[in-house]
């Protein structure tokens, strides 16, 4: 009995021995170590397991969309949108060549998931092109671009886009770099105030097929329209925009556009805009019905916002609209109820080119002192807001109104927590923040400067994305990942919201030259034009010898007759600059001009099978008959 008790005490001996050792380490060092371990567990997704969420990053001027998983932050796939992407054969076949048009790049800033009833419906992802004023629609059934709209007329630098309305009726857009309209019109930048204009654009989305068209535009002074968000609930039917450069400076904007303490944002009633179009209250400019808000009251109101603001985010209830001050250390909260009341009471402090300016003090609920360089705000659906601060390199968590009088007197008191991010955060995204029902568990901070955060890779450094757990009272940094240039905004979608296909069912193939049997493979000459109907299947092309001559235009229609996931076949032609990809069940068309004689190999570029190396053929180009 006694000896047993001794043994029991003895088991504590090692621990007792350890305590002095632990005591020797700094206590916060230990806490950090424990912290680090639990953070690792939180973001760990075992090999073969799936992430809980999709993260759709905009790829900035890479022209791509990056898809990662949350919480692992692993990059899963890249969706090419505005740029040729040989890895996926994008921009080489006739369909994607036409989608891309003549531009070689685009600048994707703001991806937006389609919504039904204010909730992501998992149908489409829209992305804007800030450079060439385009909007692309990606189908989430196959993660491919189905449509590129644009260049949108009369606009220049479609930055405040693509933010979609509650039921994906419209995608909002706005001119960032005002210019004379219609595009192509000349006026010297010195005539900026008189001759330049901005527009706010409502891009209409077909409810069945997602097809986009420019619905209407609202003519504005040459401010620089920056960001936007759409209303919901009480603010349904409205969209809100920030602008900088109310000064209407045309040069050295850095200083000249930073003179006023408040810039003018806009509240746009898009239902009223629709009505104006229906009533014929518009002028057609470059094929687009353009509304002059001075002549159609009720379509647009200006809102003063401190100072050179950036983000303009509507909360899940649709009641609060938060603007980031950028050069003002506050996030200004506007109340939609007050905006409505001010409009009703004609409580205007000014008028700008015939558009009423709402009285700031009447519509602002308060200015929360979040820190330096506030840009964007996201929401967790539990009454909290998260604002990114570029200059402070922090995210501030604070509580949305309603506030008590005591809190209103000292809004510092609604700031709950701040977390360091590394470094110079731009956008941040909380899952479902722009819907009625945010997920409320993860936040991703997208930081512009990753200096010193990664193995050195030369001067072209990547960006960092940091995963932050927002489930607790305090935010916790969980994971850091790196991405190529350059994520701006992102969208998070719960994984079970979509069930993408991995092969194109044969029955859905409507390509007029699709073939499914080797017997139908053929090469048909018609003058100088040669049409090849080809099959690609493990591990061969049928036919694999194509005889043509110099001067021919050869059109390949290649059907990948596989129906097995993962069995994409490539179609690369050496020295002819073709990198094709044909997914299972797909038919693609490539047109190649035979401009010189020789024998050119074509081969499968996508490793497909054990005999993938053998999957090849020859394009045999003999000299033109008349040249001999």
């Amino acid at each position, binding site marked *: 009995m006694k000896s047993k008790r001794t043994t029991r005490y003895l088991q504590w001996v090692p621990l007792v021995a350890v305590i002095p050792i632990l005591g020797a380490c700094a206590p916060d060092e230990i806490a950090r170590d424990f912290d680090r371990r639990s953070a690792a567990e939180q973001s760990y997704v075992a090999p073969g397991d799936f992430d809980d969420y999709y993260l759709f990053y905009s790829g900035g001027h890479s022209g791509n969309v990056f898809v990662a998983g949350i919480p692992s932050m692993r990059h899963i796939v890249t969706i090419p949108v505005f740029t040729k992407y040989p890895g996926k054969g994008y921009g080489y076949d006739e369909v994607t060549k036409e989608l891309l048009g003549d531009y070689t790049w685009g600048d994707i800033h703001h991806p937006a998931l389609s919504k039904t009833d204010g909730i992501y419906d998992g149908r489409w992802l829209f992305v804007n092109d800030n450079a060439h004023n385009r909007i692309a629609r990606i189908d989430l059934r196959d993660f491919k671009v189905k449509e590129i709209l644009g260049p949108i007329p009369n606009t220049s630098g479609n930055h405040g886009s693509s933010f979609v309305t509650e039921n994906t009726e419209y995608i909002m857009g706005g001119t960032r770099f005002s210019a004379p309209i219609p595009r192509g019109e000349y006026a010297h930048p010195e005539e900026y105030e008189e001759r330049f204009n901005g527009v706010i654009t409502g891009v209409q989305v077909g409810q069945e097929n997602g097809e986009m068209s420019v619905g209407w535009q609202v003519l504005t002074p040459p401010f620089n329209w920056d960001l936007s968000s759409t209303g919901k609930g009480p603010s349904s039917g409205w969209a809100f925009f920030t602008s900088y450069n109310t000064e209407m400076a045309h040069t050295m904007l850095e200083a000249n556009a930073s003179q006023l303490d408040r810039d003018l944002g806009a509240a746009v009633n898009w239902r009223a805009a629709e009505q104006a179009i229906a009533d014929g209250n518009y002028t057609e400019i470059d094929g687009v019905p353009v509304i002059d808000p001075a002549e159609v009251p009720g379509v647009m109101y200006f809102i003063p916002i401190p100072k050179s603001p950036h983000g303009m985010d509507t909360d899940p209830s649709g009641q609060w609209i938060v603007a980031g001050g950028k050069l003002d250390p506050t996030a200004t909260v506007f109340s939609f109820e007050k905006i409505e009341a001010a409009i009703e009471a004609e409580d205007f402090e000014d008028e700008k080119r015939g558009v009423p300016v709402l009285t700031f003090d009447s519509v602002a609920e308060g200015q929360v002192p979040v820190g330096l360089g506030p840009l964007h705000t996201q929401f967790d659906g539990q009454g909290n807001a998260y604002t990114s601060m570029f200059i402070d390199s922090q995210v501030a968590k604070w509580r949305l109104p309603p506030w008590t009088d005591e809190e209103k007197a000292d809004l510092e008191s609604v700031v709950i927590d701040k977390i360091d991010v590394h470094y110079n955060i731009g956008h941040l995204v909380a899952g479902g923040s722009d819907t009625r029902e945010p997920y409320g568990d993860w936040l991703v901070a997208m930081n512009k400067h990753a200096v010193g955060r990664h193995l050195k890779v030369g001067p072209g450094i990547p960006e960092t994305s940091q995963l932050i757990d927002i489930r607790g009272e305090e935010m916790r940094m969980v994971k850091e990942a790196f991405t190529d240039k350059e994520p701006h905004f992102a969208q998070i979608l719960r994984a079970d919201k979509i069930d993408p296909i991995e092969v194109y069912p044969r029955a859905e193939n409507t390509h007029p030259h699709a073939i499914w049997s080797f017997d139908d493979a053929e090469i048909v000459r018609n003058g100088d034009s040669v049409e090849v109907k080809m099959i690609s*299947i*493990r591990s061969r092309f049928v036919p694999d010898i194509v005889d043509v001559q110099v001067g021919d235009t050869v059109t390949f229609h290649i059907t990948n007759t596989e*129906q*097995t996931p993962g069995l994409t076949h490539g179609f690369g032609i050496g020295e002819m600059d073709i990198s094709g990809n044909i997914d299972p069940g797909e038919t693609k068309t490539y047109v190649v001009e035979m401009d010189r004689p020789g024998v050119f190999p074509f081969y499968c570029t996508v490793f497909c099978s*054990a005999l993938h190396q053998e999957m090849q053929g020859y394009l045999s180009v003999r000299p033109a008959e008349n040249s001999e």
Partner: protein
Amino acid sequence: MQTFLKKQEIFLRKPLNLWSRLCLIAAAACIGASFLFPLWEIRLVAPQYRDGLELYIYAYQLQAGNDGQHLDEINLLNHYIGMQPIREADFVEMTWIPFAFGIFILLCLRAVVFGRMGNVVDLFVLFAYFGLFSMGNFYYRLYTYGQNLDPRAPMTIEPFTPVLFGTNRIANFTQYSYPDTGSYFLIAFGALLVVAAILSLREKPIDPYETR
């Protein structure tokens, strides 16, 4: 010997009671049911085909997983080793097996009406023969597919016979071959014939010359 034959004759002349006849009706239904379900399932599993490629052999048709896609995939893979493509049209037995099933149903109903032990014995013997012949035929099919490999195929492998019952490993694939629901109905058919016979064992034989 004489007594044995006599006993046999008495046994075969035993009438089938109501329970036996109900059993036979159930047996006929089993044949009908076996027509609706696959008789055999062959499944090929490999690391890159974790969920397996599935072939279902019915009395009258060949079906494959993923809307038939698995058969195309199996044939595609088999072309690497020079195996002939597996095609439903090659299975001539799929025309006569349904015919045989029809005969079993008719004989079953005949036994219900005639109600003699001898009818059940006939049926059982015929069915046993059918079963053995079909299995032999099936084995021969598998043998033909596995042994006649095109010598010009990209991959040369030792000719083999895919397993009829059980599991087998061929290159990176594990092949599983087992009876499926339809076969269980056929087994139930055989079992019901036996039960029908047992239930009427105590019946008194009917004297064929006795008149009422």
